[in-house]
């Protein structure tokens, strides 16, 4: 009973945060992670990294959804 409740609770938050496509959440982690590495480990201007990665993943994910919808 408790395990079932914990599973449902976890699934609710996964769906609430990750949503329709896991690639978007992955892109956010990758973009912000790259920014942090560039800013702290390499010490170069890092402001461009998150927008480039995130926008690229958004375009990819949306076009992929469009292609899948046309095939269906």
């Amino acid at each position, binding site marked *: 009973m408790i395990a079932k409740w914990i599973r449902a609770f976890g699934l609710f938050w996964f769906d609430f945060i990750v949503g329709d496509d896991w690639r*978007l959440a992955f892109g*956010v982690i990758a973009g*912000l992670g790259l920014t942090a590495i560039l800013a702290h480990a390499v010490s170069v201007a890092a*402001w461009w990294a*998150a927008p480039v990665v995130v926008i690229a*993943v958004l375009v990819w994910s949306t076009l992929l959804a469009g292609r899948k919808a046309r095939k269906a």
Partner: protein
Amino acid sequence: MSAGFLFVAVFLACVVEAVEALTIVLAVGLTRGWRAPAYGTGAALLVLAVVVAALGPALKLIPLHTIQLIVGGLLLVFGLQWIRKAMLRASGIKAKHDEDAIYNKEVAAASGVATKAGTFDSYSFRIAFMGVLLEGLEVAFIVLTFGTTQGNIPLAAIAAAAAIVVVVGIGVAVRAPLAKVPENTLKYVVGLLLTTFGLFWGAEGAGAKWPASDASILVLLAILAALSLGVVQLLKRGQQAHAEPAAPTVTPEMSQS
């Protein structure tokens, strides 16, 4: 970011969520009576108040850079989902959000569940509670994140309350789902705003310094808007090419005949 920008962003986001919650509560309330949905709505608001009261002060204890990183990341995740859906809807690939259709579906579901006379309508309570809680969680999240990052939770809360008062006021007056609210366009705009602020705060939290400081927000917003409109055009073209049957090949001989 100016206080006006904060107010508009939170207000628009909360209008969208309030319209969705109102549709659910109206559907069960008008179909099965108001007592249980009113209790359900009240209980959900109570839970949300506890969430905000608990998380609000706790967020203030976390260092600003960490807050910016977490808040920016979450705003990005939500914003990107909203923009993606909005682009797919604008290009005709995904069905548009239709409050009338959702309302009718909820009414049909509510009409099909029997109640015993004289007993508390637990079905209506549960539907209203879940609807308000789920949509309200997003409102609470937006208020807390925007408010904390800008150091102005009261203004964010006022913007959210104003949105709820306006939507509920109109809903009570017309006693019908607010289908005329341009919800799909609003979601597009809100998705752009959430993504823009998410990128700005998230990157700052990760250690980046924006070259134009706060003015970078407007540049990011313009780039995202232009790119997303470009993707919509691409998707529309793909849809048209897929829908049109292959044109017959016309040879010179055929065209002459």
